[in-house]
């Protein structure tokens, strides 16, 4: 029964949600909406579990002085500090002049943007060190990359209008064809996995400890 009951629950809810997506009848719709609300609440609750897990793992590592423990201490300080500031301001945490906003704008936001901005440096370095044209396919890739990089910015048009036109063609024809193929393949895969889950053929979600 340990295996059959979860499979039965998955079958019933899965089929119902599938029907609910297409059938707008009020009887179906009301329950379908309720189920969606339950899931939103459950997903919200997982955030609490996530924070608890983060605290548990990092507190243990800090107390044991595990490798890189000072970074984990910074993480904990950031987590607890941000939560404390948010809770202390109650419903005013989102006001423009709140301390929470100050930390968001002057600490979190610049640090987060800096991490992403570092990509420019590493891409330039990787372009020099790793992009080796060893084959005809690599040459095609390099030509496409060159056209796209130059054609996607205003300087491409200033050099010659053919460059942005070639970049557009690359994006709209070969790239789009490949992307559509990937999308269709992935969608078929998702559908197949969904059907396998609903019919109980995919049992990985119930194969944890104690299920045998």
């Amino acid at each position, binding site marked *: 029964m340990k295996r059959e009951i979860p499979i039965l629950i998955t079958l019933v809810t899965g089929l119902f949600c599938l029907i609910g997506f297409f059938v707008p009848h009020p009887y179906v719709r009301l329950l379908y909406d309720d189920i969606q609300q339950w899931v939103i609440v459950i997903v919200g609750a997982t955030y609490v579990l996530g924070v608890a897990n983060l605290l548990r793992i990092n507190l243990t590592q800090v107390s044991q002085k595990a490798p890189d423990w000072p970074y984990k201490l910074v993480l904990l300080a950031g987590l607890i500090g941000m939560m404390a500031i948010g809770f202390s301001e109650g419903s005013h945490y*989102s006001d423009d002049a709140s301390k929470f906003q100050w930390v968001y704008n002057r600490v979190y936001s610049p640090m*987060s943007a800096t991490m992403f901005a570092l990509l420019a440096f590493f891409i330039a370095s990787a*372009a020099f060190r790793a992009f080796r044209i060893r084959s005809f396919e690599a040459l095609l890739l390099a030509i496409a990359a060159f056209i796209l990089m130059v054609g996607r910015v205003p300087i491409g048009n200033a050099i010659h209008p053919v460059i942005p036109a070639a970049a557009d063609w690359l994006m709209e024809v070969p790239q789009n064809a490949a992307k559509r193929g990937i999308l269709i393949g992935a969608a078929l895969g998702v559908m197949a996995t969904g059907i396998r889950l609903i019919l109980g053929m995919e049992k990985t979600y119930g194969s944890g400890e104690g299920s045998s």
Partner: protein
Amino acid sequence: MRLESLARLDRRWIFLAVGLLVMLPLGFGFHIAPVEPSPRARGFFDAIEKLPEGSTVLLAGDYDPSTIAENYPMHLAAARHLMRRNMKIIALALYPAGPPLTDQVLHLVGAEFGKQEGIDYVNLGYKTGNELVMSSMGSSIPRTFPVDRRGIAVSEIPVMKGIHNYEQFSLLVNVSAGFPGTKEWVQQVVSRYHLPMVAGVTAVSAPEYYPYLQTGQLEGLLGGMAGAAEYEALIQRPALAMRGMDAQSLAHLFIAFMIILGNLAFLGKKPAGRA
């Protein structure tokens, strides 16, 4: 410099060059080339232009500060365009760290156009659940978002009067950094409720949305800071993205140059001898 010694180039020189090429145009503001709007940016612009003044638009800012350089300028430009045309804006975010950015955009642009929070626009804030939130809004927005970001009940917010589900919106404007974002809005809302949609996305993710653009599920697409700059040119309000275009132009050229230089260095390397 001989080709062999190129291979030993210290990468800190590359970092320095990138830093200078980005900072100098931003600092001195010289102008390399004009921004030419693409058909994708024009589609975005036209989708808003063709709406009757005073329409209600859903503005989803699904990004956080990590992609602020690309997404914030397009978010700002879209809000300016919408408010200039007196649209009512119902904003939300499906990224936990997104709502403060939406607040900044709406407050800044609202002040420029003399718009009032609650009357002309509202920020519903963040709700966890990704696609489920999108799907749930199709049944009832007040049930999905009972209060706005300030904690005020939506039933007491004038701009939310008469808003029940997607039927009351004329357009969905999505500014997206990835998941959940444009793809999910197309799958859950455009295909199901037939709400017209335009999107502004990061440059790296833009190719993913070209199929939706070609099928008409997206009426317009802004890709990265370049897309935002094209849109700023169309609304005739140069701002953050236009300012960044020269820096981006030089950085792109430099990376292309690095690919060539790296391969020259590779060619110059002597083949390793046998042991």
